[in-house]
């Protein structure tokens, strides 16, 4: 991975990003015929390749939705697996068009990286996983524990804050990739593995005996995860932002992959706007009138994607919780489409 960051640093220095900075990402993607999407190196439920090399997951669906909106084909994507520490450099250098890789939205990331978050695909929080045999029931009992963490994440800083704030000592061992971190935890090098709660559930599936490990109840941070694009291209920013909102709006209106064609015939003014039979919202974004249909046909609405990848319909079985619609007790909410 070191080589990747070196190459992109040099590319940055040599100025390959001139074209990227000149606010033409949508056109560049169209001309290339391919969306370049930065994803994780394998986090079940969010972005991971199956045994045939097909990428699936909630983060992957965002990329597929963008691809569907542009090309009417959810498969015109080049997936670029990135470690936590290389992801921003890859975006800055123009190697990828969008970073959809369980990345936490923070103020300093919005301001110093030359990139912006477009929305929140998953409201997460950081938690801890320990072996059941340790008989620990709360994170406050972790004084003097060894903690395995993936380096280059907000997780590392939250961890320091939490232990310092609670006057507890700990030893941190930071690894370059998530797999190395999980392996070290499994080998017994650490007592505790920490990352976002969704990640804990996902990684627990990778362990030899998942039932021997327990996720502690404490959630020590706010981790709103979302896609990122480079600064300086407002049109592209809008495309990525509204792709997610289209998925959420579809769920709000009850549009699903199954009833899509039926709903498209609806006479309701709201439906007509969304499906593009009235007005030109899609064209205002630089897309086509039927962009929402294309998205829903490819990946379903937000709720469908959630269930399929991380929710009840997946191995992870995570409850909707905060990620439910605002009308159903969660905080997922799309601005009006008009």
């Amino acid at each position: 991975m070191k080589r990747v960051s070196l190459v992109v640093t040099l590319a940055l220095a040599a100025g390959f990003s001139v074209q990227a900075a000149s606010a033409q990402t949508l056109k560049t993607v169209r001309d290339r015929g391919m969306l370049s999407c930065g994803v994780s190196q394998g986090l079940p439920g969010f972005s991971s390749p199956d045994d045939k090399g097909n990428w699936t997951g909630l983060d992957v669906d965002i990329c597929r939705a963008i691809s569907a909106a542009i090309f009417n084909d959810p498969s015109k994507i080049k997936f670029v697996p990135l470690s936590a520490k290389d992801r921003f450099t890859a975006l800055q250098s123009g190697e990828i068009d969008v970073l959809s890789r369980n990345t936490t939205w923070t103020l300093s990331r919005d301001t110093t990286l030359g990139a912006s978050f477009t929305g929140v695909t998953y409201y997460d929080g950081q938690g801890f996983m320990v072996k059941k045999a340790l008989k620990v029931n709360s994170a406050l009992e972790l004084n003097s524990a060894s903690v395995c963490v993936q380096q280059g994440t907000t997780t590392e800083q939250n961890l320091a804050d939490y232990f310092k704030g609670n006057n507890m000592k700990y030893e941190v061992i930071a690894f370059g990739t998530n797999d190395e971190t999980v392996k070290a935890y499994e080998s017994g090098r650490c007592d505790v593995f920490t990352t976002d709660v969704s990640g804990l559930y996902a990684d627990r599936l990778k362990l030899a005996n998942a039932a021997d490990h327990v996720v502690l109840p404490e959630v020590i941070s706010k981790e709103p995860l979302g896609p990122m694009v480079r600064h300086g291209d407002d049109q592209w920013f809008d495309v990525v932002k509204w792709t997610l909102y289209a998925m959420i709006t579809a769920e709000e209106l009850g549009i699903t992959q199954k009833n899509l064609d039926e709903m498209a015939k609806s006479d309701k003014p709201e439906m007509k706007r969304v499906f593009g039979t009235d007005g030109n919202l899609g064209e205002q974004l630089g897309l086509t009138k039927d962009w929402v249909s294309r998205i829903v046909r490819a990946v379903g609405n937000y709720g469908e994607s959630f269930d399929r990848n991380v929710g009840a319909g997946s191995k992870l079985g995570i409850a909707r919780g905060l990620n439910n619609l605002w009308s159903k007790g969660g905080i997922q909410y799309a601005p009006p489409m008009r």
Partner: protein
Amino acid sequence: MAIEPRKPPSQLLSNLQRALGGRAGWSGFVLQLLFVAALAWVAYEIVANARANLQAQQITAGFGFLANTAGFDVSQSLVPYSGSDSYTRVFLVGLLNTLLVSVIGIFFATLIGFLVALGRLSPNWLLSRICGGYVELIRNLPLLFQILFWYLAVLAALPSPRQSISVFDSLFLSNRGLVIPKPIGTAGFEPFAVALLVAIVAAIALSRYARHQLFESGRVIKVWPYALGMVIGLPLLIALIFGAPLTFETPVLRGFNFAGGSRVIPEFVALTLALSTYTAAFIAEIVRSGILAVHKGQMEAGSSLGLQRGSVLRLIVIPQALRVILPPLTNQYLNLTKNSSLAVAIGYPDLVSVFAGTTLSQTGQAIEIIGITMGVYLLISLVTSALMSLYGWRIGRSMG
């Protein structure tokens, strides 16, 4: 400028011409000048372009981030460090960890390398085959694989802290590393240290005197019993008067881990083991080639003087072999230092891991951080090769 007044200026000019332009004279000089100018222009373009791009994308640039609070912790640090220190401190912590693993790795790699080389040249069939097998096995496996082997296969097999292997209830070996009692100086420490120092200086003086006597009058003085007596006896006497110079803080298992004592983390052990055994395989071959490069007659001459094999090697062969060995040995030292950056795979907090890894990711300032890191490795390498050249120059001089 020390120009001798008698020297005619034309000769100075032609010397200058040859120095600057080589055989081609002035035209060569102009070509070189153009080349340098072109290089400078390319460098300027790169810097200017990078600046423009960074500004266009509103990426923060500059070195101001070095003063910001790091906010994350590190598992091993040679200087006091906490999460509320700055990124500059993180840089120092990472640099020292890199230097620590490099220096200790170089020491063991050299030691093992020399021993394996001598073993491979030994007339003992079994020993030479074992050493040959070592070289062929180790140098043909990828280093990253070996680091992971030591870390995941060997050290992970150790028990958890609660079941750790203990020696006299003071040394504990577990998958958290090796915990040893921590020495703490008492009031008697200073006189003890002074006594030890005095004894060592006296022992060195004595051996110099003995050597002088040997060359001057051929008289052999047995130095080591006196030296040993002084180095052990004098500090012991002082300790009896002032009391024990050190007490030891014994580690105790508390909660998840050991409290008190000093700890060697398994990441450090795995990295040092892998780096030193791997590099030793190459050093062994370099040393072997150096020894074989010394003319056979030298060894025979030594034997005919009645010297034993060990003495022939130590006094005659190795000093001559060193001339051949040193340059490629320097290469291996540099390789070891650079290879230590593979540490990130096993979570050892070296410079690449904490600075070019975590710090880069937190600040996003790739160009500055990669630039600093490359500069540091370059500097370490240049200093190492300068020291080795100095050593080579001294050997060359001492042999005339």
